[in-house]
């Protein structure tokens, strides 16, 4: 009798553990194990661990704001923000303007953000209006609106009257495909207050910047507007009944996401050292979406912690995959391929979960 009791207890415990694992998410476990195995193999291949961690921190600083742009969109109920290229292009325009005005250093960086925000508000408003008309298909429409906007802006990059020779092609019209930020705002955040700890370089400025962005977001979500916005995502009918203008909130969420996309690409560019124009923004939305999903978000729920954890795990894998692959064999493309498989695999997993926006 007693024995039976014990047995049932152990099974319930086992069940509980299984339940916990399931709620934690099987793909997340796979990804964490994958990252750990990569780290271990890196140790065996005597790839310097501090350098890997430094790179991961730099990438974290570069990518977190882009990932953060998914958050308002998910919370307000417009699902993953596949219209991210719209925000990115606003940011790139801001960056190009700041170079055109011959600004340098942190001024250039913040001026670029300043230029891009009004653009992002405008574009985000228009995009929000569109999304209100296509409820239920935001992701598909968003993807193609983003793609179309990228190719439309390709016209723009060729024809817009920017004069600075740094950005122009030596021959022909238009701005280069990649514009170097050397001497402009390349690494301005990464180098700000940077220090070394046990050989790990900490890009303090970039981390502080992303901390501030997350803090602002967290505070905003606690305000009345922020709470109303989340209500729209959780239960639009109830939100409407309690007097919240759902459509207006959705537009607001889209605008914030677009602005974060613009700021995100500029923080990305300062770490990367280049502005990537033309077709480069096209697939960035999927990477950011994958990152927040890896962190534990779903198509309907997300937290700031998901943004940070997800970006860390995803970028961690990308950072380690390349040197590991290169040491094992000349498999240079492994990093790129694992990026494609991991990012799209996690989005597919999220889509195949029950209880999405049917």
């Amino acid at each position: 009798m007693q024995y039976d009791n014990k047995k049932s207890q152990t099974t319930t415990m086992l069940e509980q553990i299984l339940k916990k694992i399931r709620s934690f998410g099987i793909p997340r476990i796979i990804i964490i194990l994958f990252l750990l195995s990569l780290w271990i193999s890196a140790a065996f291949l005597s790839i310097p661990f501090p350098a890997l961690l430094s790179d991961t921190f730099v990438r974290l600083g570069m990518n977190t704001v882009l990932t953060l742009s998914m958050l308002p969109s998910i919370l307000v109920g417009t699902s993953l923000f596949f219209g991210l290229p719209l925000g990115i292009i606003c940011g790139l325009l801001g960056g190009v303007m700041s170079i055109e005005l011959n600004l340098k250093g942190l001024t250039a960086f913040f001026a670029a953000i300043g230029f891009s925000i009004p653009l992002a508000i405008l574009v985000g408003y228009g995009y929000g209006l569109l999304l209100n008309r296509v409820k239920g298909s935001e992701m598909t429409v968003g993807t193609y609106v983003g793609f179309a906007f990228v190719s439309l802006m390709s016209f723009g990059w060729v024809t817009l009257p920017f004069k600075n020779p740094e950005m122009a092609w030596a021959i022909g019209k238009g701005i280069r495909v990649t514009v170097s930020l050397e001497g402009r705002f390349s690494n301005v955040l990464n180098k700000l207050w940077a220090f070394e700890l046990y050989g790990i370089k900490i890009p303090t400025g970039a981390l502080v910047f992303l901390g501030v962005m997350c803090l602002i977001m967290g505070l905003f979500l606690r305000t009345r507007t922020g709470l109303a916005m989340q209500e729209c995502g959780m239960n639009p009918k109830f939100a409407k009944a309690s007097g919240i203008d759902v459509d207006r909130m959705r537009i607001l969420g889209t605008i914030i996401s677009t602005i974060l996309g613009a700021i995100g690409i500029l923080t990305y560019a300062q770490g990367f050292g280049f502005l990537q124009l033309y077709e480069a923004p096209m697939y960035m939305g999927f990477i950011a979406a994958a990152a927040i999903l890896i962190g534990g978000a779903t198509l309907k729920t997300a937290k700031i912690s998901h943004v940070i954890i997800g970006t860390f795990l995803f970028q961690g894998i990308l950072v380690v995959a390349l040197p590991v692959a290169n040491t094992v064999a000349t498999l240079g493309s492994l990093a790129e391929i694992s990026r494609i498989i991991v990012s799209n695999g996690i989005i597919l997993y999220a889509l195949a979960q029950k209880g999405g926006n049917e």
Partner: protein
Amino acid sequence: MTQVRRFLTNNAVSILFVVIGVLGLRVSGLSLPFFLEDIVNRLARNSFMVLSLIIPVLAGLGLNFAIVLGAMAGQAAIIVVTHWKIPGLGGILLSILLAFPLAVVLGILTGRLLNRARGKEMITTLILGFFSNGIYQLVFLLLVGSVIPMKNDVLVLSSGVGLRTSIDLTGGLKNGLDDLLRIPFPVCAAVTGIVLLGVYLTRFFRRRSVRLGKMVGIGLLALFLIGWGLFQVYTRSMFNFVRVPVGTFLIVLGLCVFITFFTRTKLGQDMRTVGQDRHIAEVAGIDSDRIRIIAMVMSTVLASIGQIVFLQNLGTFSTYGSHEQAGMFAIAALLIGGASVAKATIGQALLGTLLFHTMFIVSPLAGRTLFGDAQLGEFFRAFVAYGIIGLSLALHSWKKQMQAREEARRSV
């Protein structure tokens, strides 16, 4: 008058593209025979692929971006057949045979995934296309030569691992289907006219068709084709150098006939019911999950054949890129033909392929003439392809929302 107006609003997209095509053709300064040769080739190349999209639309799955998976299956088979050095028609048949089981498996997997992601089918197939591209690259870039043994200096990179980025089918599958039978365009037009006339005359005498206007229209078209064709042959004009790959077009025609008959079978009707209303279908005792999987399998298999037809016509392909855009371009073509997420016909598919490729041919040339830059024409092309997909998805969703609102108002 209202009829004209309805025709214009219902076909606004196609009419717009006819205008763009005609204007672009004039601006580009292409001669008609030259343009015709290009467009005939491209129609032969791409029609099959576009037609493979129709069945999922029928089953209510929307636009199947996952035909990329079918394209990959076809491409994998082509790689194997090229490795074995089997040329011509035999090689093509073998690659269709090899691609078949792979496409069936991929179709079943896609269908099962879509049954889990109801209501989000299109975005799921889109992402699935990207995902499977990663798997494809993993197999052909990393596993071939290292895990999967393959020794071939022409196909494999000099390091011995991974396939080269482009594969030439010359001396292999290239034009294996096209070169079966090539007939000068005017002859082809005349023969088509005669067949058309024959078919409709027999129909007329059996009193199948009632609408007189349509009969007269088709009769005149047929007579025009015959007259024009014979005249061109007689005057030995440039049009005679346009040689039509009849074999490929016959296969496309076969697919059209198959789809027409399929929609009339029990399975086809069930599919339509599932597409229109899943709940009614369930009540009627139709296993909608199974029907949806069958639709995906059919689409994937057809797409695999479509890619083989496509590549044998092109004669060379980029190993890691050719399949990627197959889905997007085919979908853009279908939509330009006037199809929507919920409805697509054979006519729309063929018209769309014609209009889309017309734009493809003329836009770089028009771009060069108008802006002095061919690149701008290419940007325009990409913008139109993406834009048309985004626009028609948005319009469809908006219409659905309006309908739901209307119904809600009525029920109140």
